[in-house]
């Protein structure tokens, strides 16, 4: 093989037709990679690596997905252990648009909670902290 890249020429690769295609079982397992930015955060799916075993999968995941971002922890999970829904059943996720009462955003209850707190002398810590912060910033 003749290449413009001197490194390619140096390794004296065989001509292309000499490469034999892989048999199906020669291929490695696929692993799903999950990335955690900080301790306590959720692990978020970021991609896949191919590897012959768990240790090697972690080793690759570190370089492929942990090197350019803040990372506290990585998980690798064999793709075949993931249980998916069926795309044929995608319609189960469609909801009727009129049913906003099923969504949390449709409830207005804070005014009632505040009223209850005042009546019963309950201190809302969140509210307190907010007020303290406001005071501090005025100083």
């Amino acid at each position, binding site marked *: 093989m003749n290449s413009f*890249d*001197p*490194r*390619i020429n*140096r*390794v004296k*690769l065989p001509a292309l037709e000499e490469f034999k295609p892989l048999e199906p079982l020669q291929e490695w397992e696929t692993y799903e990679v999950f990335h955690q930015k900080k301790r306590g955060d959720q692990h978020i799916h970021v991609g896949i*690596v*191919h*590897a*012959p*075993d768990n*240790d*090697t999968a972690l*080793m*690759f995941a*570190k*370089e*492929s997905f942990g*090197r350019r971002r803040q990372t506290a922890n990585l998980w690798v999970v064999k793709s075949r252990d993931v249980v998916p829904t069926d795309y044929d059943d995608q319609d189960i996720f469609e909801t009727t648009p009129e049913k906003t009462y099923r969504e949390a955003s449709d409830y207005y209850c804070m005014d009632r909670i505040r009223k209850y707190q005042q009546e019963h002398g309950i201190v809302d810590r969140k509210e307190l902290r907010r007020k303290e912060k406001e005071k501090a910033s005025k100083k």
Partner: protein
Amino acid sequence: MSYTGQQKNTIKDLLFKMADDQLILGHRNSEWTGIGPFIEEDIAFSSIAQDKIGQSLALYNILHEQLGEADPDTLGFARSEKEFKCCHLVEYPIGEYEFSLMRNFLFAHADYLRFEMLADSSFEPLAKVAKKFRGEIKYHVMHSDNWIKKLGTANDESHSRMQSALNETFNLALGIFEPSEFENELIEMKIFAGEESLKSKWLETIKPILEEASLKLSDEKDWKPSFGGRKGSHTEYLQPLLNEMGEVFRIDAKAEW
């Protein structure tokens, strides 16, 4: 802390051999970029190569900023072969992948232990970078150990290839520990505890891993360390590499990219 001229030369000698090892091995390992055995390994090994270049830069920076040497680009690209202090191990061409893996394994362990020792160095700028490199080199060690153990025991072909790679690289690796003429000063000044002490730690570390990988070291009486590199006497492979590496710099020293 202020040093006498002789003390400065002692420190420089240590820094140059470390920085040159990192630069040349980094360059060699980067030759696998794009032609690694498969994509994930290509990324991992390239990244290890980049770490090495970064480590050499940090060491050249100390030479430049603290010890009055030229800027890192000039040190990396414009010195003659004789002025390089790298060991022979890092100079060899990449060979087959098992050669590069075995070289990286033998080097990474020495590297990790060296910087662990240097974390307590009385020369503060060096102690500081030594601590900074720890995480990077720990990964290099994990990467190497994983492959050495897996390929040493996977099947007959992989085992025999790893064994010949070990046979080819071991004497070269012993060259890492070629004593300098300043060993005693370095130890007295508490800058570095010395090559001999590093070598015995290194042997203690790699032996059980090689054993787990079913790989055999030759008898100690047959060991022939490949010395000379630390004194500027190199293999035939270094000069062509320096030519290639410094090509752009020689055309235009101020080039930016």
